[in-house]
């Protein structure tokens, strides 16, 4: 020991040993690299949902909430859905004090009394009397999880001959529509404010020539409970094709656009298109014959070239000579795909280097034509509900399911108006394929039913739509509706109480 201390190298050796030991300790205690697993959001059922059916008069209103699944454990006893005409709080107060005075009161009476719904898994339908304006469907509690409404009008003659259906839409801050312009059809914008705060709305129109600027003022303010129609010809008379963006700078708006192409040319609602994105899937194109016209809008300030791929029954590929569409900055372009995808169930996969919005016009066959519209839609990761499906003599409802990226299995369940629903059916969609299913009405009903589609766990993104086709001697009537994600589940993100959020 003494020699160690007195040795010139003794201390050095000691220190080196100590350092070696420290190195060993540090090395040994170093934790293994763990994969950075971000915390996953948790699914939780929706607790309240509001939807607005833009113009229910003369249509059949369908409302359904899919049955509570096995995972529905926290459904509360209370709540329910209320279907009632949208009215301003002031009018409601007026109603109470001065009943049966004037025209307005008559209109109210015509609109009908609020209907309360309590049962999930059962389709509710009612034909609304003409003159009914916007109808709000509000639900809380168990009825909220997956509440879906739609309105379908069917006229066999007149300028509005055809099937016209639309979903009842949830109010939001932003809505996109792509379709023909006021020069080609009578385009009417329906806006409604179902909230307690006023909504300040701006309407932007992207025509074939670019963004339409007008001096009439494209903004309007909706009081709580107010609904209005705007003839888009007043804002932009000339476009043949257009995209409409309805956005709010305050409050929320439920917007819908109806296109009336004229006598013998058809009528339908434009579905809400997915907001601008670099990759857009336009799903739900049925396998009927007829014209297919793609609309693409590039709202940014940059020209772009959009790659078009069709996802068909036999695979996903670019169409010959129709590989790309050029879209000038801020404008809308059409592109005829009738020879490419006509007659086959399909979805379109559009990619671009800047965000785009896309939609598609489907024209039925026959002497008197009818049109239907579909548009870019998100995938239905958490399932989707289609409220109104009809299978009757000469009327068929089809689901068009596409899995453009990887294979998927979906569970399809029919929900009749009464009686026990049949067992769900599993449908496999291979990767990069589209599959069309002809729905069969559940036995015992009147052929009206709702459909609840749920991807099985492990499936890739599934896109789709539903088409109702009615073959009449005067010509095929058609309406389509791309799948919208059901409002069954909300993803509750993990949260962290962290003062660091004040830092960028």
């Amino acid at each position, binding site marked *: 020991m003494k020699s160690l201390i007195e040795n010139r190298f003794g201390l050095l050796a000691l220190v*080196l040993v100590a350092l070696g030991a420290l190195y060993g300790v540090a090395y040994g205690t*170093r934790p293994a690299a763990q994969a950075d697993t971000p915390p996953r959001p948790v699914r939780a059922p929706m607790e309240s*949902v509001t939807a607005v059916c833009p113009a229910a008069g003369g249509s059949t209103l369908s409302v359904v909430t899919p049955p509570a699944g096995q995972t529905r454990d926290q459904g509360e006893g209370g709540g329910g859905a209320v279907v009632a005409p949208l009215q301003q709080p002031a009018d409601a107060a007026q109603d109470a004090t001065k009943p049966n005075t004037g025209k307005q009161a008559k209109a109210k009476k015509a609109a009908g009394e609020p209907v309360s719904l309590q049962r999930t898994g059962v389709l509710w339908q009612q034909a609304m009397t003409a003159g009914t304006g916007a109808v709000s469907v509000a639900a809380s509690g168990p009825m909220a999880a997956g509440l879906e409404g739609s309105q379908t009008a069917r006229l066999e003659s007149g300028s509005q001959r055809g099937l016209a259906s639309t979903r009842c839409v949830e109010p*939001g801050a932003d809505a996109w529509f792509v379709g023909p312009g006021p020069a080609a059809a009578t385009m009417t914008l329906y806006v409604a404010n179902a909230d307690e705060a006023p909504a300040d709305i701006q309407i932007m129109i992207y025509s074939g020539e670019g963004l339409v600027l007008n001096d009439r003022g494209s903004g309007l303010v909706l009081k709580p409970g107010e609904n209005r129609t705007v003839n888009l010809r007043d804002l932009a008379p000339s476009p043949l094709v257009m995209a409409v963006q309805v956005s709010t700078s305050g409050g929320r708006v439920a917007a819908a656009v109806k296109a009336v192409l004229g006598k013998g040319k058809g009528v339908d609602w434009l579905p809400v298109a997915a907001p601008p994105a670099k990759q857009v899937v336009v799903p739900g194109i049925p396998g009927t014959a007829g014209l297919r016209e793609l609309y693409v809008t590039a709202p940014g300030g940059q020209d772009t070239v959009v790659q078009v791929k069709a996802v068909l029954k036999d695979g996903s590929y670019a169409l010959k000579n129709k590989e790309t569409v050029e879209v000038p900055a801020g404008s809308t372009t059409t592109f005829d795909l009738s020879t490419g995808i006509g007659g086959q169930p399909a979805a379109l996969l559009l990619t671009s280097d800047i965000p785009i919005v896309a939609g598609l016009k489907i024209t039925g066959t026959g002497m008197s034509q009818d049109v239907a519209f579909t548009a870019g839609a998100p995938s239905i990761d958490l399932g989707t509900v289609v409220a109104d499906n009809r299978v009757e003599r000469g009327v068929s409802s089809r689901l068009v399911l596409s899995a453009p990226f990887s294979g998927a299995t979906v569970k399809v369940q029919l929900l009749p108006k009464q009686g026990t629903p049949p067992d769900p059916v599993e449908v496999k969609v291979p990767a990069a394929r589209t599959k069309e299913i002809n729905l069969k009405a559940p036995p015992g009903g009147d052929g009206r039913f709702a459909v609840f589609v749920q991807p099985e766990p492990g499936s890739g993104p599934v896109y789709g739509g539903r088409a109702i086709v009615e073959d009449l001697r005067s010509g095929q009537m058609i309406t389509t509706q791309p799948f919208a994600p059901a409002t069954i589940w909300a993803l509750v993100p993990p949260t962290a109480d962290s003062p660091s*959020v004040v830092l*960028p």
Partner: protein
Amino acid sequence: MHSVTAIVVAHDGARWLQETLTAVRRQSRPLDLIVGVDNGSRDGSGQMLAEALGSGNVLNLSRSAGFGDAVHEVLRRLPPAQPRQAGGAEWVWLLHDDCAPDAHALEALLWAADLNPDAAILGPKLCDWLDRRVLLEIGVTVSRSGIRDTGLEPREYDQGQHDGDGFLDVLSVSTAGMLIRREVWDELSGLDPELPLFRDDLDLCWRARAAGHRVLNVTAAVAWHAEASTRRRRRISASNDHPRRLDRRNALLVIMANLPFLALMRSIVRNIVGSAFRTVLFLVAKQPANALDEIAALGSVLGKPGRLRRARKRRRKDRKSGYAAVARLLTPSGATLRRLADMVQGFIAGAGPVDSAGRHHASAGASDEEDGEELLSDSGLVQRMFTSPGVLLCAALLAVALAAERSLLFGGLLGGGSLVPVTGGASDLWRLYTENHHVTGLGSDTWTPPYVAILAAVSTLFLGKTWLAVSVLLLGCVPLAGFSAYTATKKMIPYVPARIWLAATYALLPVATGAVAAGRLGTAVVFALLPVYAALATRIVAGSRRAAWGFGLLLTVGTAFVPLLYVLVAVLGGLAAVSFAGVRRGVGVALAIGLGTPVLLLFPWLAQLVTDPGRILLESGLHDVALSDPRLGAESILLLSPGGPGMPPVWVTGGLIAVALTALLLRRHQMVVAIGWGVMVFGVLVAIVVGRVTVDGVAAWPGVPLAFAATGLLVAAAHPARRIAEFAAKGGLRRLGGLLIVVVAFATPLAAAGLWIKGGADGPLQRGVRDPMPVLAAVGTGKGQATLVLRSDHGVVGYTLLRGRAPLIGESDLPASPDASSRLGAAVAGLASGRGGSYARVLLADGVQFVTVPRPVDPGLSRTLDSEPTLERVSLSANGGLWRMVQPAAVRPPAAGDSTHRLWLWAQATILVVVLILASPGARSAEGEDEYVEVPVEEPRGRRRAGGDRVPV
């Protein structure tokens, strides 16, 4: 012909009396009568008087009689005064028992009296009893504040420089050796019996002056005076008070009794202000007895207006008319300010505020002007600054820091990493520290972390600008650390080049650059303080009490920012206690003071911290996963690199390790090197433990333990550095080796500086951080309402509540109650999921009026908020979104106060002041007593009494 009666008053003065009596009897001008008065002496003075003068000439009075009483008594018994004759008068010569006149003193006095017939009072030049060349008095004047002024330098030698024509016109002379005309004495009623001791002479002479007589100091006459009473060479029996208090009280009384009314009013004001100031200075200098005397004297004068009125009544005659003659002899008013300045300067220099000019014993503590190579140089300030290696080093480090922090110097708010954007001022921080219920976030009743108070104090120094204080502390961390390392190691490492190297290497350690990059204010402060701890610790193990208080205070500061520091210091302190406590006296107590002070000062907060031990490993500010590396490599830790942002490559410190290893080979200084390496090994071990611990999902950052380790290593490496110079002198291979070591050593700081400048200092810390509180929300929120900030990051929604403004530093360290925060968490999750429901109502109940999503806005989150019916969008752009609740939010009532909180704050402030006083430099020598050598001849030592008010130094 004059007739002179000498009156010798004795009181316990046997030590001096013999010599005094001899001197009186040996006068060249013989005295007509010598009368002795014994004021109840117990040491045989009375007997001595009787032996010398004959018992018939000695008067025995009671012990409590004063000097004035004694003279009055004698004169009462003498035959009444004769009317003044031509060429002669009746004189009375007053003598103390400790005042020996020169043989020709009386002769000279009478000579002066003959030359100046209007002179009524004459006094000799007084010199020191022991060192007979030292001048004590050539007349005394007084300032309007009652401070006695002799006009002499302390310990001034008499070389005839003040002698003039043999006599001087003065305001007053001492009663020791005072020659006064009997008729004047009677006219003025002599010495005031209200003033048994001290300033009675001044009073008498003032009255004489006011009555139109002259007072002369005859420099041709000399007397040696021991000043036994004021120097407390003997106990005073005439009064129970301490002589110092008595002196001060009488001074005030004399001034106030003799000044005309208007001047009196001014004097009262200036004395109150002046006394308060002096009291504070005495307190700060740890002379509480002096402070008490000062304030008690003033109180006793002003508190007894009756006595003052009586005294003024007696002096009414001639007071106003004669004031002009007195006023020109008073100390000019400028002198008071100068003396005050001297006092403050003296205090700063460590001498203590002993205003020597006013003391009887004019002896300033001979401050030993040792150490400080900077001070010894007598060249100009500029030259000194530009040639001092320390200043040059700091300038270089400052330049390096400014170059590296170029992007952090100007612009908007400073924030990022651990630092919340710095908003608010010192007053906001003080309020945050002192309030007992914090309204921030969900509200919190916990103790505010004490570093808020420290930061508030520093901000106050920076004129209330917190941003400036934080910028200096954080961004200036490198030069500050360099400066403190350079100055703190002065005693440890006298070799300047080694000290320069040590300071530069220390300041540029990866810990420093990491602390700056991550905005770790706590580490930055501790990093700059660490060398000071080391320096003070060396003095503590030497047993210094004052260093221990200072250490305790600084450790409190460091612990408030980084609690882990206390653990490290406590472990080392324990080891030191084991090794040194037995060796040196007082080490144990000093260590206990050093380690106990932080516990006392930080008590409730520390107790709160101990209940959640994980937080001890974290430091002040925000804790973010990205700021530390839980998988820090073993080589990083051993190379003193704590991980996280702002790290240079690990090899940068290689040179330092290599040099320190080389130091192990030297045979000399092995003890210091071994201790240094011991600290290094200890620090690295703690760093490994700390670095592997995860607290609340955040890995702790081992910066402070590694700075600790580096300090040890640097001392080990730099201490034997003088050997290199020896190597160089030897030449040959050794010279080459020395050169190599120098190159390797200096490679570390140079490479660190270069890499730091090249890479820039900004990491997560940046300038121009946006104020997290949107202006619209700040305007729109009422009192008690809040804004919820949501930020989606990798799928996790982080949130915090702001109450009307951006959070202050320290507010992030206030935990809310678990109930409230889990309720808020659930509500935020519900809101961010967009599932509807009543979550928004929960938020409303918590006062949330606005919801904001700062940049970058997650589109999913903004869509969800847009779809929430209870929210109304105010704005949304790439810079962030803001939503308002449609309904007005609940305003919560403020919580009730808590008195214990306030009590503790007062207690804490008191303890802090006491510790500050104990830690601050005090008087090196309390009184002149110690230097006063005892009478060399006849008296044995041993009668010395220890001063009651001495302060242990």
